Every structure is written in C-alpha cells, then in structure tokens.
C-alpha cells in the first residue's frame, strides 16, 4: 500500500502541511496546539463528509455488487437475479479468451497513444493560450466547443466524415491518393481514425487543465529565470514544466481512466470492427452484458478492467513520485 501514500503527494508542493499555525509542528506539541489540531480535523471531516457520503451512497453498492456478480454463479429468473454459488469460472473464461487479450491490447495501445498525444498537444495549446493577447477569450471559447460536443454526436459526425460513400474526409483522401480509401474498413486506418477523433475531442480537456496550472505559476519564477539569462526552451524545461508537473499528473491520471473506458467512439464509428480490431474492453464488456446477457462474465470483464486501470494509475503515480523526488534532489 506504499503507492497509496504517493497519491496524496500529487500536489503542488512536495508535502504541504497546511494545518494550523506555522509554529505548530514540532517534537514538543503543547496541549492547546493539539486541541486546535483536533478541532481542525473535525472541521475537515465535517466539510468532507457530504461529498464522501454522496459518493459512497451511490457508488459503493454498485461497485461491490458488480464485483460479487463477477464471482457468482448468477441466473436471471422470474423476479430478478438468483445467486447460486461462488465461482471463479467467469475470470477463467475471460482471462483465457483471445478476444479479451486482443481487446486489452487495443485498449492499452489506444490509451498510451492518445494520452501521450493529448498531453503534448494540450500543453502546447495551453502555452499558446497563455501567451495570446486579445484573442485569448475567442480562441479559448472555440477550443471548448469540441469538448462540449456530446460524445455520441461527435462520433456520428466523424462517422459521417469517414463514410465510405459520401464522407468529406474520404473524398479528401481520394483526391490525395487517387483511389477511394476504406478508412474505417481496414484495421490500421480504423485505429488511426479512432485516435484522431479522440485527440480532437479530448485535447481541450488537457489544454484547459494545464492552462489553469500555468496561471498558478508565480511571475517571479520567470523573472528569476530571465535574470539568469535562460532561453525560452530552457525556461520551459527548467521552470515551467516542473511547476506544471502536479497538474499534468492529474490530467494524465484522469485521461488514463477515460481512455481505458473508451466506449462511445468505437460503438458508433466501427462497432469494434473491422473484425475485432477496435473492440475496446468497454465494448467487450457491453457486448457480454447486454448482447449475450452473460451477467457474471460481463461483470468479470468490467472488474478485471478496473483492476488493470488501478494498477496502471498506481504505477504511474509511483513513477511520477520517483521522478519528482529525483527532480527535487537535482
């Protein structure tokens, strides 16, 4: 559980202990200080509990229920679910299925490629926005539009653009290549198309999170760099990026979560095809649950996905922390 603590330090300063007056921490804590600390902790719980209770009330039961289903021999009968016994069969079936492995590979590859692309492009866009003059409001507003588009609609729009008969992009590439491309019909180009759409739709998310982070960087840091005679590139690597690191971590973390759960895009654009080339884990889980009505197995797909994502996130946080520590030392 060491990794757990690292998540708490994804914050701007290494380990801020904002509680109480500055002189409070120390080996010899006085009585009043401890009482104040306890009072502040109580306030903290009071402030945090409405949110935590809401999350708990809504999500804890469904998550546990799903995990149970994934281990249960469950049937549908008149009147609802009937549980027979506990079993590991669902996981055995899922983990041994080549289709699951393929879905995992696609989802993992998709996540890595889109998150990296979106982080790079999103940071670039944020830097541009940060430096834009009068036009900043307009550009920001325009940037928000793809993000605001309803996912299902965005997928339909791109499906229309990629349409093999009358799609605008199909036509464009036909002029370019001299023959009509089968964009969504071939595995490589279908995956590429999926990445393009996701980058178009989600880069604004990263850009805005990073932009808000840029706003928090104090000006004097830059002034110091300028006095040192650092160039733009050096300033970015040595000053801006380290300051942005925590906020970027959050963006990456939540992008990993979203990308791993990718559903709408392949569902509308390719239905997982051609063959099963773009079948994500979420699509596989959906098909198992709602098309095959294999409830236990569907729950096993979902639960194993969740475990893998949590693993990835914790790994990321740990790598991030290790790197941050190194950076701090250097």
């Amino acid at each position, binding site marked *: 559980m060491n990794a757990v603590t690292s998540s708490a330090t994804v914050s701007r300063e290494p380990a801020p202990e904002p509680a109480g007056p500055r002189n409070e921490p120390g080996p010899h804590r006085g009585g009043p200080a401890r009482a104040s600390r306890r009072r502040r902790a109580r306030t903290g719980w009071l402030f945090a509990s409405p949110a935590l209770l809401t999350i708990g009330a809504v999500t804890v039961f469904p998550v546990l229920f799903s995990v149970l289903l994934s281990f249960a021999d469950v049937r549908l009968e008149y009147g609802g679910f009937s549980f027979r016994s506990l079993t590991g069969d669902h996981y055995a079936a899922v983990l041994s299925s080549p289709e699951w492995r393929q879905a995992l590979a696609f989802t993992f590859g998709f996540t890595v490629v889109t998150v990296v692309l979106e982080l790079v492009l999103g940071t670039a866009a944020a830097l541009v926005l940060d430096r834009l003059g009068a036009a900043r409001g307009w550009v920001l507003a325009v940037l928000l539009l793809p993000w605001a588009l309803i996912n299902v609609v965005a997928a339909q729009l791109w499906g229309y653009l990629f349409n093999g008969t009358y799609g605008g992009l199909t036509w464009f590439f036909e002029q370019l290549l001299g023959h009509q491309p089968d964009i969504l019909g071939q595995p490589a180009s279908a995956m590429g198309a999926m990445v393009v759409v996701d980058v178009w739709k989600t880069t604004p998310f990263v850009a805005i999170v990073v932009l808000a982070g840029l706003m928090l960087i104090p000006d004097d840091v830059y002034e110091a760099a300028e006095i040192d005679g650092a160039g733009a590139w050096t300033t970015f690597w040595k000053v801006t990026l380290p300051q942005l690191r925590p906020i970027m971590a959050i963006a990456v973390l939540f992008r990993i979560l979203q990308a791993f759960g990718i559903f709408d895009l392949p569902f509308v654009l390719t239905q997982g*095809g051609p*063959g099963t080339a773009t079948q994500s884990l979420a699509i596989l889980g959906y098909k198992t649950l709602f098309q*095959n009505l294999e409830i236990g197995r569907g729950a096993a797909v979902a639960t194993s996905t969740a475990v893998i994502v949590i693993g990835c996130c914790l790994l990321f946080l740990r790598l991030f922390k290790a790197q941050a520590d190194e950076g701090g030392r250097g």
Partner: protein
Amino acid sequence: MALSRRTLLAGGLAVGAGLTSGCAGKSLDTLLTQAAHVPRTPATLTWWVSEIPSRGGPVVADLIIRAFQRRHPQIRVRKSNALSTTDANRAAVTTQLAGASPTPDVYLGDTIWPAQFGANSLALPLQKLLPKDFWEGYPPALRRVSEYRGAVYALPFFTDSAFLFYRKDLLAKHGLPVPRTWEELLRTSRRIQRAGDAAYGFLWQGNVSESLTCNVTEFLADADAPVLDHSGGVALNGPGAERAFALMREFTETGVTPATVTTYVEADSQDAFTGGRGVFLRNWSYAWANAADRSVSKIAGRVGVAPRPGFAGGGPPGVSCAGGWSNFVNPNSHNLGAAVAFARFCAGEEAQMILLKNAGVIPALQEVLTRPEARKIGDPTLTMAHTLRLVARPVQTPYYSQVSKALYTQANAVTGGRTSPDGAVRAARADIRTALEGRAL
C-alpha cells in the same frame, strides 16, 4: 481470514438478493393464471415500442393503441418510445427487465431475441394461452424463431424480408434481364460498370453487426449450407459454406462491390444506391419506399425489385432472412392479463390491417397480404412477400449472440480480404462451437 471473507460475500449476496427480489420465486403457474384473464377493472399498460416505419401518414403505434382501446375501454396503453437501433434498444430494455421492473408491460423486440430472452426469464412463455391453431396464419419461419424449447416467447407483429433492388433503366439500356443467379449478377454488373454507367454493381451490408449475419445467412442458404444441425450442433462446413464465403470475397475482389462494404450497414448501402452509384442493392422491403422518394433518391422511378438471386445449379432464387419485430410480455408486469391481451391484439387481423394500410413494413399475418387493399398500395414488396423462401437465423440457441458474432466477424474478414474463404469457414466453425459450449465472450 477465509472464513470472514466468505461471510462477507454471503452477506453481500444476501443484500444483493434482497434488493433484487421484488417478487423472486414467483412460480410460473401463478403468473400464467394471472395472464389468462383480461381484467375488467381499469388498468394501464406501458408498451415499449420503437418507431414503426410509416407511409407518411399518422404515427402507426398510436393507431394500434387507439384501436385496442376501443375494444378494451378499461385498459389504457401508454407508449414508451424505444431507441430504434437494435443494440441500444436491447441494452435499455434488458436493464429494466433484469432489474425486475414491472414496466414496460409489453415490449416490441427483434425476432432474434426469443430464445435468449426466454432462457433468461425476461419474457413470459405464452404457448399455454394461445389456441392450438394460432400459428396457422403466420410464416413457419417466424414461428421457429419465436419458440425456444417448445415455449413461445414472442407474438408476431411484423416481418421484414430481403429483396434485390435493381436499376430498371440501366438493365434496359444494356438489354439485360434481371439476374436470377449470382454468376449472372456478377457478369451484368461488370458489363454496366465497364460502360461507365455505375460506379458499383452490387451493394449489400458487410459491417461487423447483425446486418452482416443476415446477409451471410442468406448466402449460406443459397448454397444450401446450414449453420446449425437439427440437434443444435455446429454444421457449418464443406464446399457449400466455402462457396458462400468465396462469393462475398469475389464481390469485393472484382470491384463489383466497393471495398468499403465492410463498413456498410443498411443505411450506407441504401444511400449509395439512391445516390445512383450502384446497379443492384440487397436490402429490406422498406428500401422500396425510400428509393421511390424523390426528395431523397436520385433514381426515383427507375428502380425495380425482384427476389434475391441464387447460385447457378443451386436452389431457386428468393431466399430471404426472416427479420422483423414481435411483442414480448414482461413476466414482472402487474397487468399480465391486459398485457397478453394487447400482444395478441397486435398479432390479430385488425391491427395487421392497420399495419398494411399505414406502415412501411410487411404484416406478419399472411392472409392480409392477399387482400385487394395490399395491391392497391402499389408496393411490390408487399405482394411479393409471400413468394419468398424465408430462412431463420440459427436463433434456437440462447448463445445466438455469440454465434452471430462468430459469423459476422469471419465474414467481414473474408470480405475485406484478410482471410481466405476456407480459412474463414474453419475459424467460424471453431468460434461457433466455442459459443455453443458457452465459452465464448
């Protein structure tokens, strides 16, 4: 530790079971007794219904509901608009049914659902409530898909049949007849394509979805190759199956069908056809009305319709996948008697006549298709419907979804040129076996 974990799990299961069991353990007999009587006291039904294609007039579902309420003034029927895309529709309705929701009382569902829904207790078995001669008026293929292990889980509403739509003007220009075999269709297509009169010859549906399974089922039936045998085991094998798969490859290889067919669902193929890009189109009966609609179609008035071709030396043309939508009764309904009455009304003559006159679908009751009113509408798909040889998809297994997925995945690979026909047959056969053993995802 193990003990405490087990206790925890058991506790969780109990909580889950408590939450889920509104009326768990209800015996089927009790349900059927309730279902046998139409209530005399006021009742309200919810009917889950996706849009029924209309001939441009009033909303068809409303007409049916009004007619039913005239017959049963004490029963009110409320319409719940379902999504028309089969998969999203199924997700929404199965969530409600699996959640033991008493609504919708009656739901309109695809004819591929009965076995799966019956096996999972999501639909009430109705055979004990039907007269012996109930099925006499309906196509036998429809009966086959509505039954699972001797129980009837769906009552007929409307059917869908596949036809070959063709460009009358182009065939006339080249002095060619409507092809009766696939070999002939390939020759005709190439000739017209070479003359530059159409970009493509034959348009159909090759997307990884149920649409492709319908096409594959038809090609396999043309080649007289069954998917499952009578005992429900896998039968897909041999030269017949390979011939069907090889034909799909030949279409794309020769350019008679565009390579993008691997992404086509019905709408895409129809749009390409009405845009004047193809000579032939395999589609469902509703495409007739769309191809004739001048606001959508560039080729209105130049379209003919014929039975689908067969293989040279094979069976006669006119094979069509048995598609369509039927009414199911929710076993958790609080108004079982009224629900069954409504589902039966929809299958009856009055409702079927409403469908004939107002809806762009083929009524399930065969007899209404021979009425003079059917000819008056002037839609050849209506008058030709009863001449077709309807083939059922292999839906008599609760694992049909997985079987279908095996078929469409391999057929898509063959069409896209990613595997050979015999390789695809072998792979599909293996995947179907895995599916039937309940091991497929």
